[in-house]
């Protein structure tokens, strides 16, 4: 299934029948197409070199964040040597600062290929900072699809802006809740919890159940905190949005049709309250600036917290030999909201690194490198690096033995399921960085007890309206309509 008009088609794919068909196709096809994408990319590069469209001494400049080098170029730069051997095109990888792609490309547009997070795409497109890859896909017969056995995971959330393709997914990240399995399985804990709450100790289905678990296991005097969710200002929205999306049924929209913010709605306020509810059960300093996952993940890995929310990368860290919780943790689906007899769950893409091509003379060559790198076989070798940085982003990664040993089968299964309820990250509109910065600031204020949730959301709504007016309401309405008309609301379970 080719996804040039991805969103509408993806919806169909998500239907169970289509999934079944895809699984059958996977079983029949096996590895028939694996490696073909890379081979065609290599041939195209050779063709460019033969026709003189690429000089013989061409150098492809790659801008990756710290840790990405191994992920994208392989252990001991194995993939780099392979690419240079097959194409003659030298790679020059540089580490870029840990900042937004908008800042990086605005200040240092000297890279032929770099990475950007999913929610950053609208701003990069609006700023005309990245190449529209649609013509390149057509020229080289390369299509992004989610077909099994080796298609991309939900590329509709990661690669497109409207009906144009601007990125190639290279790091699949959705939010996953990690809990201490040893505590959940402990009979004494189970008995105590049943006595306290009248229901068995189990993974939470709702945010309320999650908060109850956190409260139950918060024992700072024993060196155990209830939760170590990030409450750093930067990226605060990532831990708020799943809460909002599951609350705001039936339509999880941040804006109405006239681009008036819905963030100060009861759903927005409830999500904010839920966001702040776990702060009292977190370690001191959780709301300090700079205490990101570098602060929270070691605590969970060292066995000093009951719960945390992270990407699938968390499983790799917790499953490492040095981890105190190796074999003692479990990945579970993100909680939802009870609506009648149903549980409405929602997730969103957080973090994540997509390959984008900044505007420049080597765009064609950079695209071909990205095409080669994201080939099912080649990408499995990069994701399968034990100390790697990129997380699985193709279906074949989930079945790769190397990757399964790094992440654990259980975590990968939850990871695969969570994509089914995932939504677009952020606002999906130009100005996303501004909108989210306001939201992050107000969420932090609430987490620090400086502002009530309702007030924070009202302020956020007011500032969002100002941003919308400044950017042009009519234009934002048009983009919202054009870019997201096929995006569904949260799925009810």
């Amino acid at each position, binding site marked *: 299934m080719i996804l040039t008009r991805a969103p509408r088609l993806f919806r169909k794919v998500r239907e169970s029948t289509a999934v079944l068909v895809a699984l059958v196709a996977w079983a029949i096809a096996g590895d028939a197409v694996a490696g073909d994408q890379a081979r065609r990319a290599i041939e195209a590069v050779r063709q460019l070199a033969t026709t003189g469209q690429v000089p013989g001494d061409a150098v492809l400049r790659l801008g990756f964040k710290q840790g990405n080098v191994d992920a994208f170029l392989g252990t001991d730069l194995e993939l780099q040597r392979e690419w240079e051997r097959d194409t003659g095109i030298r790679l020059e990888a540089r580490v870029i600062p840990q900042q937004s792609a908008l800042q990086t490309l605005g200040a240092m547009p000297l890279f032929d290929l770099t990475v950007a997070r999913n929610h950053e795409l609208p701003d990069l497109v609006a700023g005309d900072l990245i190449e529209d890859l649609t013509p390149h896909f057509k020229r080289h017969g390369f299509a992004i699809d989610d077909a099994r056995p080796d298609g991309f995971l939900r590329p509709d959330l990661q690669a497109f802006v409207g009906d144009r393709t601007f990125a190639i997914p290279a790091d699949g990240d959705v939010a996953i809740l990690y809990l201490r399995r040893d505590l959940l399985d402990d009979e004494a804990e189970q008995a105590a919890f049943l006595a306290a709450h009248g229901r068995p100790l189990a993974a939470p289905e709702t945010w309320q159940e999650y908060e109850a678990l956190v409260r139950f296991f918060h024992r700072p005097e024993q060196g155990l905190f209830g939760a170590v969710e990030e409450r750093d200002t930067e990226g605060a929205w990532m831990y708020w949005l799943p809460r909002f999306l599951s609350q705001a049924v039936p339509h999880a929209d941040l804006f109405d049709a006239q681009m008036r913010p819905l963030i100060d709605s009861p759903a927005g306020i409830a999500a904010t309250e839920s966001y702040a509810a776990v702060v009292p059960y977190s370690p001191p300093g959780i709301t300090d600036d700079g205490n990101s996952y570098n602060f929270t993940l070691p605590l969970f890995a060292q066995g000093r917290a009951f719960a945390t929310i992270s990407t699938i990368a968390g499983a790799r860290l917790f499953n490492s030999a*040095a981890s105190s919780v190796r074999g003692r943790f479990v990945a579970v689906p993100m909680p939802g909201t009870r609506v009648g007899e149903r549980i409405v769950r929602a997730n969103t893409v957080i973090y994540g690194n997509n390959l984008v091509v900044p505007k420049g003379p080597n765009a064609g060559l950079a695209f071909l490198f990205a095409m080669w790198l994201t080939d099912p076989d080649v990408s499995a070798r990069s994701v399968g690096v034990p*100390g790697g940085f990129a997380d699985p982003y193709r279906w074949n990664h989930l079945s790769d033995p190397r990757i399964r040993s790094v992440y654990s089968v259980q975590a990968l299964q939850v990871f695969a399921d969570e994509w089914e309820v995932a939504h677009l990250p952020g606002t999906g509109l130009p100005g996303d960085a501004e909108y989210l910065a306001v939201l992050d600031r107000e969420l932090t204020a609430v987490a620090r007890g400086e502002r009530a949730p309702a007030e924070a959301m009202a302020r956020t709504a007011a500032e969002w309206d100002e941003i919308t007016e400044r950017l042009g309401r009519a234009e934002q309405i048009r983009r919202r309509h054009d870019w997201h008309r096929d995006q569904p609301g949260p799925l009810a379970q």
Partner: protein
Amino acid sequence: MIGRTERIAGTGGGNAGRWLRLSLLVRLLAMFALGGALGLGVLIASQHMLRDAAERLERAVADQVIPLAATHRLQTQANELRTLELELPQMHDFFALAQHLERMEGASERFSRELSVFLGRMSGEQAAQSALLIDHWQRYRQDLAEIMALARAMELKPAADISRVRSRGAYAAISANLHELVAKTERAAEEAYLSARAEQERQMRFFLTLSLAGFVVLGGALLVFSRSVALRLHKLRDAASRLAAGSNHGAIEVRGEDEIGELAVAFNAMQDKVVAREQWLRTAHEELEDRVRARTHDLAAANARLRLLSEAIEQSPVGVLVANVEGRVEYVNRAYLDVTGCDAESVLAGPMPVLDDGDRSGESRAALAAALRGGIPWEAERHNRRPDGSQYWEHLRLATVFDERGAPAHLLLMREDISERKEQEEKVAYQAYYDALTGLPNRILALDRLQHAANHARRDGTKCAAMFLDLDNFKQINDTLGHAAGDTLLCQAAERLRAVVRDEDTVARLGGDEFLVIMGGLADGRDAERVARKIIAAFAELFRIEDRDFSASASIGMALFPDDGTEPSVLLRNADLAMYEAKEAGRNTFRFFNQKIHDDSVARLELERMLRGALQRGELSLHFQPLVAATDGALIGAEALLRWDHPQLGRVAPDRFIPVAEQSGLIVEIGAWVLDEACRRSVAWRAANQGEFMIAVNVSPRQFACPGLVEAVRDCLERHAIPPGQLEIEVTEGLLIRNTTEVRESLAALDGMGVAVSLDDFGTGYSSISYVRSFPFHTIKIDRSFIRDLSEDAGDRALVVAAIRMAHALGLRIVAEGVETDAQRHFLAAQKAHVLQGYLFGRPKAADEFAADWFGAA
């Protein structure tokens, strides 16, 4: 020469003798042996030196370079390891930590392996230093393991403390050890280098000496050998050069018994033959040159002629195409392309053009095929069409060009655009056969068509008709409005004629206002009559000329084949006669030719013949009829009347011979005589009549048409001293109808001379008051026909009264002719007519009789 040849032959016998003679081969082998021995010696010496140098190099690499490189590698890896160690606490992202630790582990393993190899190569005397190095590395490795363990447990701060304090000393000790090893290795390397250099210099000196001695010996031997060979070869070379240059210096001197000596003998023999052959060749060459010169001259002349002919063809206005016998076109000139309108590429790429004529294809093709078979020139003229659609006439000529054996070699097709010539021919033909004004066939073509029509009628047993047509009013319109209007009338008349006849009939213009219509396939004269009536009807409609309407009727005479003649000229003449009949019948009608017309015509011609010379023969005379005053009957003058008395015919009536004189033109001469004779006679009568006597003379229109009438009258008046107003010139209305400028001017001139002008036969013709007013008349004469029935016919009476009153009103004198009774006389007198004439007063009489009657004397 024989002796030399034998000597050469003799040298082929004993190879053993040649070896004993120190032949060149023997000498060369000796030289090679000497050179080989020398080279072998040098090779052995150099091999020995190279082996020594390699051994020294291997020792240097093993003893100094490898340990030095290994030491540097160890130092580099230690530095890398230390860098990774120091970078560890600086990691911003825990997800990148694992990669970093992997790198540290890798670097640690590599250093350990490298150190193990390095220590294995160290000599025994360095054992203490090796142990020290191992000790330092173990300490540093333990520190690194502790640091990495802390990092894996995400405890970066304690790891950083170890790096900053404890591991720093271990790393520094390793570095110091390695530096010391490097320094020792470098010193040993320097000593080994100096020793090796001294040994190499010694071996080099020995090698150079040995080589120099060998080359001196070899050089001397080569010099001796080359001189003995080279001198004799130079002599042979010089002799061969002279021979090649054509100069002969005789046989060369032979020395030596080796191959060069034999070569010299053979050369002398060859030289003798070459000289003889050269002499023969020179002679043959000169003869050949003479022949070539002559042929070249002929060829140049032929080429010049060919160029001239080629240029002539190229510039020729006639299109020329050359094709081979297979029909493939090989050449076309510019004119050919101009004539046919084709482009050169298409013509040259195609076959010989098809020469079929669209209209006569069979004929053309057969003729062309016959011409091609027989090699006979073929030509034709035909109408053709160019690719652009334009049409043209072309003259084609096809000829076969034969080769020297008489076989057809090429086909020559010439095409000439003769459109202009054709056009000229058509124009000339048109002008010769067609009337330029109306576009109708002219007289020549009309007669030809008439001949064809007659022939056709003869074959078919039918009749054909010749209709001679004359416009009744043409002259009047032509004189009144001018020639342009006349031409317009003719053109319109031609159109109407063509409109009423069939397409197959011919309408021709014979000249002036005469047309001829030829119709064939007639059953009888009624068919022609119907057409004549249609023509009359067509001409009844007014003609529009210069925005004015004019009436122009037609008089038509018709003659039928074979009834009225079988020859075109006869038919035309008879139709002409019939046309005159129609004219005489009052115009605007038609007449068929019949025998009476013919007879009348014959009679008229006979009368004309007789009339000629009548004046000279004295057969003509004048009679005079008196003119009397109406009031009292007094004689006031006489009208001179012409009489012809022929010896055989007797007296011929004036109305018979005067029209003949008119038509034949004899009237001009006769009229002049009448005027003079009348005036001469009147002189005496005037004197006898108290000086008053009006002499009236009739002047025909034909006389007015001839120049000199006015002068003749003036001469007559002067000659006979006729007083003004005593001569009256009588003219008829027929003259006025023509109304030409000449008539008007002549009448005015007569009036100016005092000559009275009288309008004769007033009332009989087309009398028009406008005529009376517009011409300088003095008198009108009422015709006798009105006077004769004056007493019985009230109409005539009314007309006479009206005429007299009109004359009075215009101040004209009125003369009444044909007065025969007193009643008539009284009536006319009562009406105040001025002059009376008629039998009542006297018949016309000869001059003498008239004089006797009126004056009593002859």
